[in-house]
């Protein structure tokens, strides 16, 4: 396998796959505070606190790596003596014996391969697949190198302006171009409502998971019910009443209470034997056998489904579900804006060019004395590149389309 040789890949195979980097301490041994090891992982080395080298430290669990040493390169033990980190450089506070084998093990789900395999965490897994993304920092630096300077359309621009437009671009792309990768697996509690995720911007899809693990799409309750934003308590004349602070008194929502107790079969038209005379029925002027079994008149296809409904309760910041979903497992897929966490601020390489086009258009269109034809040129370029990015990220593969089309001769039975 190739080693990092000046290409874009910076990690060795061992660093990427095993999350480990090895060193041997200097011979003869260096003095106190002189032995250093530089981690070159994609992920910065991080200690929970300055004393978090110590397993008894409160923030020890926040470290994203463990340091192991060995005298023979066979038996490793965690190094629990003082050391410090500055800019990925580990400085051993004391002295290390000469020719000691040292391993930096990033935390992994399997605990790594050294010592007692207790480097448990997800740092290694978070880095997997990272090559398909580029960081916002790199995008901004690349933009400055490629598009800003003497003799270019943008001779000078403040980094803060680029940062603003890049982040706004990432937000906009997150809404409709980038892949939606955020989701939460939740169980619907008896209250029939779950809290909106912290980095939620909009939902993509909510599905209930059946016993086979198959997704059943839960539909929005659009015209069926609503969670009112305000529920003022009224007096006999219908006037809202106020408390000691002159603010309206709020009660519990009766709409929600009724929705929670609703038998959804009465809405969907689902057959329940107890609801119908399924043995005797009145038919053709006389009582007889047959019943209403299998008959449903005036069915509304939009609501004729048994997967359940959800609606947004903006008053409480929750997503409310219909009663048939109680205790059911659901998966909430949603989009964020790509800026909520540092690890989110990454751009798929397939959309990198579109982001450059967005930044350059945003800068030129807000700058004075730029001819309109130039602005229009970059507007078109942005639009074309964004379309390209969307197509690329749609992940359209010929083989997959072929597989779907193989069912083209089947009847659509509805």
């Amino acid at each position: 396998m190739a080693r990092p040789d000046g290409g874009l890949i910076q990690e060795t195979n061992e660093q990427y796959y095993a999350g480990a980097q090895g060193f041997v301490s200097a011979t003869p041994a260096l003095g106190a505070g002189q032995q250093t090891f530089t981690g070159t992982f994609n992920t910065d080395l991080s200690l929970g606190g300055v004393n978090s080298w110590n397993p008894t430290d409160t923030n020890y669990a926040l470290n994203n790596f463990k340091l192991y040493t060995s005298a023979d390169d066979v038996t490793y033990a965690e190094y629990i003596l003082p050391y410090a980190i500055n800019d990925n450089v580990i400085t051993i506070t004391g002295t290390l014996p000469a020719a000691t084998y040292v391993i930096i093990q990033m935390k992994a789900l399997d605990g790594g391969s050294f010592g007692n395999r207790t480097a448990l965490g997800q740092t290694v897994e978070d880095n997997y697949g990272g090559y398909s993304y580029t960081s916002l920092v790199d995008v901004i630096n690349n933009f400055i190198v490629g598009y800003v300077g003497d003799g270019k359309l943008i001779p000078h621009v403040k980094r803060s302006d680029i940062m603003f437009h890049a982040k706004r671009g990432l937000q906009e792309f997150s809404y409709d171009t980038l892949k939606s990768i955020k989701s939460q697996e939740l169980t619907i509690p008896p209250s029939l409502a779950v809290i909106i995720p912290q980095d939620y911007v909009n939902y993509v899809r909510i599905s209930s998971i059946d016993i086979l693990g198959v997704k059943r799409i839960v539909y929005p309750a659009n015209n069926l019910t609503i969670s009112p934003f305000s529920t003022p308590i009224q007096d006999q004349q219908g006037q809202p009443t106020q408390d000691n602070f002159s603010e309206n008194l709020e009660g519990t929502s009766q709409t929600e209470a009724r929705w929670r107790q609703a038998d959804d079969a009465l809405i969907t038209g689902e057959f329940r034997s107890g609801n119908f005379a399924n043995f005797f029925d009145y038919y053709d002027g006389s009582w007889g056998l047959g019943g209403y079994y299998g008959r449903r008149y005036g069915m509304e296809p939009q609501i004729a489904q048994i997967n359940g409904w959800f609606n947004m309760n903006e008053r409480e910041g929750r997503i409310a579900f219909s009663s048939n979903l109680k205790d059911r497992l659901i998966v909430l897929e949603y989009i964020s804006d790509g800026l909520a966490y540092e690890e989110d601020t990454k751009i798929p390489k397939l959309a990198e060019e579109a982001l450059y086009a967005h930044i350059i258009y945003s800068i030129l269109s807000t700058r004075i004395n730029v001819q309109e034809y130039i602005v229009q040129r970059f507007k078109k370029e942005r639009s074309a590149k964004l379309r390209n990015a969307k197509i690329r990220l749609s992940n359209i593969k010929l083989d997959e389309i072929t597989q779907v089309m193989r069912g083209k001769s089947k009847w659509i039975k509805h």
Partner: protein
Amino acid sequence: MAINVDTVYKTVLLILNQQQRGYMTPDEFNRVATQVQLEIFESYFDDLNQQIRRPQNDTEYANRVKNLEENLQPFEKYINNTTSPGAITGTNPFFLNVRTYPADTPGPFSDLYKLGSIMYRNKTIGAFLQRNEITQLLLSPLTQPTTNFPIYLYEAGATATPLNPTISVFPTTINLPGDINVSYLAKPNDIQWNYDTGEFGQFLYNATSVNFQLSATEQTSVILKILLYAGVIVSDPTIIQVASTQIQQEEQNSKS
């Protein structure tokens, strides 16, 4: 490649003494030479600005922007506390120690002329902003400074250290002076043609003299400009006229 002060002085004297027009003492020469060096140095910035806005060629030696940048090269410096111990102190705001207080003597940064860039950990360039801009930036969640995109203010020194400029870096978690690097233009040296006195009372060049730091390509400009001032000193309009015509011609050539 610097310009030798002895060569310049002797050339100036040679031209001046033609037809016994006058004489320039070493002290007069030193002052005028320092003035001329500063004048030429200061003209680079506007010249560069002017040339950058013009189309350039790709030749090896006739690209004016490249030539001007080469002229600035002897004055461009990049330092930190390792290369110049004590140059930067404080824990954000940082101080560039132009003077050492309370003694008020020249400090490690005494040659600071123009601040170029502030680097954090040798890799990221901080953006230089005004106080009102930074207030606005800090209000916007999208433009918050980070260690990847730090910003800084360049302001007057504190009351106790008035001549040491203050650098306030954001985010304020950047607080180690050792993490800060500064690129700047150094002030040109004062020119000194030092001498010993010979047995006949004549002045003999001393090797402790301070040469011009300007590029060797500037030698003719330096001599002409010194001659211009020398013409004023010795009250000879012919010298002034010849020198100024020559300088004008040169400038016309180099900027048209």
